[in-house]
């Protein structure tokens, strides 16, 4: 079995050895065991944390079944988002159209759950069978006096990343429809999904600085917050892949500036506070930020030092959805003494990969849209001890006798923020040092 598809040569880069520009954002080769998902998946994961909205999936049952409460996006209030609603299209609907079923389902749902808005997702076949999703949404919207937003997400129309854009377009239809008054020193947090309660940590930091957080999009999200999101003075955007598009729309349409941040690792987390303080040109905010950073560092460094001493020399392979996260992970791993030897993502851009190249040591393998055989080969080649990835990578890593840390949907402890760095170090330590690996080595 050969390890690499020849067509993929330019999607793999060996730092210090290769010269070519990374080729990315291209569809997977047909027949490859790709780790990627589809447009629908991308839109669904981005929108679903909005907890007081309905999320109705128009299609055969699978698309609803597989996205039912899979991400652990926590809500401090309503939890309608954790239920699974589907039109469960059957053969007769494929032949005669599914519009009436969609209409009925929407009405039944709205009457029952009294949501603040409804997102209606199209799937692969909706366009093919000729259902006019938009018309149905308009009709129900009018009849029920509620925003019913079509999310045009047929799976085949691209990759997960294209789904992020679709989600942002849907959100953009809500933004600007509210008129809440917000203070001058206010931000929106974009691109955190409150997995394992991470958002709540961030809210605490910003609150301690004295900053008003207007809307969180979409973690622990609420429809009314999104409606008034344009009232904030700044969009703080995490994870460049999923929410940049909304930030750009909001800048164009409402003049809300944005900045990119990452909350993973101490350096990036602290920068996220400093940059916001700088933006508001406020000495008071800056000194608060410094105070928080000092306080947190004082608390964390001794603990991290202990982990670092034990983990020094360990090597990690990183394969995640967004490349921005990969960048933070490289830095966070370095902080605890772990060298990144393989780094890849499903949806990185050429610029992201350039950043990664500059950040990594010579010999690091950088890869776009990888697959299990490649990843196994890279791990072997580099002698990695730990793998950081998502659900499909976990069992492969274990089979190879590697430690594993889920930095995706299935993380159960907050990994963002200062608290998250401790959790991250603890998780990496626990898995890298687990006694179980000695039995197969």
């Amino acid at each position: 079995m050969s390890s690499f598809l020849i067509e993929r040569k330019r999607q793999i880069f060996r730092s210090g050895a290769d010269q070519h520009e990374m080729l990315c954002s291209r569809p997977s080769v047909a027949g490859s065991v790709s780790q990627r998902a589809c447009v629908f998946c991308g839109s669904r994961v981005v929108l679903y944390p909005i907890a007081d909205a309905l999320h109705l999936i128009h299609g055969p049952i699978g698309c609803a079944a597989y996205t039912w409460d899979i991400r652990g996006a926590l809500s401090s209030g309503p939890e309608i988002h954790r239920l699974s609603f589907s039109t469960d299209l059957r053969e007769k609907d494929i032949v005669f159209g599914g519009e009436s079923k969609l209409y009925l389902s929407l009405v039944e749902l709205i009457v029952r759950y009294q949501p603040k808005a409804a997102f209606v997702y199209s799937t692969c076949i909706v366009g093919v069978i000729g259902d006019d999703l938009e018309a149905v949404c308009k009709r129900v919207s009018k009849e029920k006096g509620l925003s019913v937003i079509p999310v045009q997400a047929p799976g085949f129309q691209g990759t997960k990343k294209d789904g992020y854009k679709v989600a942002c377009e849907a959100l953009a239809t809500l933004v600007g429809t509210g008129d809440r008054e917000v203070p001058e020193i206010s931000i929106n947090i974009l691109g955190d999904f409150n997995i394992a309660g991470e958002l709540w940590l961030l809210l605490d930091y910003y609150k301690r600085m004295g900053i008003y957080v207007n809307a969180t999009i979409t973690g622990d999200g609420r429809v009314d917050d999104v409606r008034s999101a344009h009232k904030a003075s700044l969009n703080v955007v995490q994870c460049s892949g999923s929410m940049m598009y909304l930030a750009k729309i909001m800048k164009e349409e409402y003049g809300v500036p944005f900045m990119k941040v990452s909350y993973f690792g101490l350096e990036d987390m602290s920068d996220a506070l400093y940059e916001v303080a700088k933006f508001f040109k406020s000495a008071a905010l800056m000194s608060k930020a410094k105070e928080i950073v000092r306080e947190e560092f004082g608390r964390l460094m001794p603990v991290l030092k202990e982990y670092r001493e034990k983990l020094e020399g360990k090597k990690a392979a990183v394969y995640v959805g967004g490349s921005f996260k990969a960048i933070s992970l490289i830095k966070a791993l370095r902080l605890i003494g772990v060298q990144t030897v393989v780094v890849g993502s499903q949806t990185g851009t050429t610029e992201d990969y350039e950043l990664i190249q500059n950040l990594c040591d010579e010999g690091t393998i950088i890869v776009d849209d990888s697959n299990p055989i490649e990843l196994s080969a890279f791990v072997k080649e580099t002698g990695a001890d730990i793998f950081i990835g998502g659900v499909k990578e976990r069992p492969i890593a274990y089979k190879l006798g590697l430690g594993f840390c889920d930095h995706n949907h299935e993380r159960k402890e907050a990994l963002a923020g200062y608290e998250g760095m401790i959790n991250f170090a603890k998780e990496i330590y626990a898995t890298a040092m687990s006694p179980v690996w000695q039995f197969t080595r």
Partner: protein
Amino acid sequence: MLLRHTSDTIIEREALTVNPAKTCQPIGAMYAALGIHGCLPHSHGSQGCCSYHRSALTRHYKEPVMAATSSFTEGSSVFGGQANLLQAVETIFTVYNPDVIAVHTTCLSETIGDDVNQILQKARDENYVPAGKYVIHCNTPSYVGSHVTGYANMVTSMVKYFSAKSATKKDQVNLICGWVEPSDMREIKRIAATMGAKIVLFPDTSDVLDTPMTGKHEFYPKGGVTIPELISTGDSKYTIGLGSFCSEEAATLLENKCKVKFSIQDLPIGLKATDRFLVALSRAAGVKVPDSITEERGRLIDMIADMHKYLYGKRVALWGDPDTLVPLTEFLLTMDMKPVYIVSGTPGKKFEESMKSLLTEKVPEAKYKNGERADMFLLHQWIKQEPVDLLIGNTYGKYIARDENIPFIRMGFPILDRVGHSYFPAVGYTGAMRLLTSILNAILDKEDRECREEKVELTM
């Protein structure tokens, strides 16, 4: 209170499904295909489908699950997926080198009208398929049936592509296995071996989705029914299908194609269904049931007898797949429990007929429903009307279990939050003992935790 919106009033629904008790066809086809040795399942559709199915199977088995995808694009949805599928076949044999590619379709490739049969013929004619290698397929439109249907369709296509009748009969019995765990398939093989019955079990996911950790990732683990075994099924003297939803179509085709007679049995879950399976197998294979198995039966009955007072009259709600639910319901009745609510998203008249004959007399108040809108929401509403003492089903029951504080045993697909199901069987007498143990533990643990302090009993 995750499900606080659920009330005891049954909401009339014409169109909406809330919290489904099923998923779509392709994942069943993928799971069945993994039960062929050296097989790479292939999803002919958008890459999201493949990704979802692999993730769901991975979460359930905690094992790597390999499958390829045609990675449909906008172009394929307009011009058809032929180019993608041909390229996929070439790529897969070049890079992943399986013995068999098992293609299943998706709602998209079905709706745009791809003729997979014809495309694969073209692939063979134009030498995309190396000598000695196979590409098989089945149609799995996601809007027909459920995941169970997809499993049945892939099993049927194993017969369609491989079963062949030669001049000489073989002294062996085909066991077409319904959708159960690798542990169950392993147990069925153990029972047959103990009886001295020669069998071909297919599909067989043991040693594929329950592999030991060795420090190496085997892309094609050692388990799975082999191609020569599948071919030889046409020469077998008899076929037993286990679970009508999953095996009847394949068994029927095998009879039509190769004249191998068959009978359909329930999956051997519980005392009576295991009895029937053993009788059927001993007749078909011409072997006796050895004492060691009769003694397993005796131990099961002994266990029921010892604890029957804790079982009597306990109300149970269950959900999942028909082939499992039917013998499970029967087993609960055997133990004098009361299966009162039963739900399956999988459509099919047989379910209702079987439940009717099992329940009408013994539990006249029982409610059961399958097919459209037979979902977890409906089940929860029934439970709100009159509570139950026990829940048995897949992980999606945990919300109800928590909200209503009902003991809950995980069984079925998917189980996303516990382990053991892929290692310890539920079939056969020993499987029944394990089920009974779980049932008692769940009920008695709750009793111990919640009864009045003065009522805490040391011995039970």
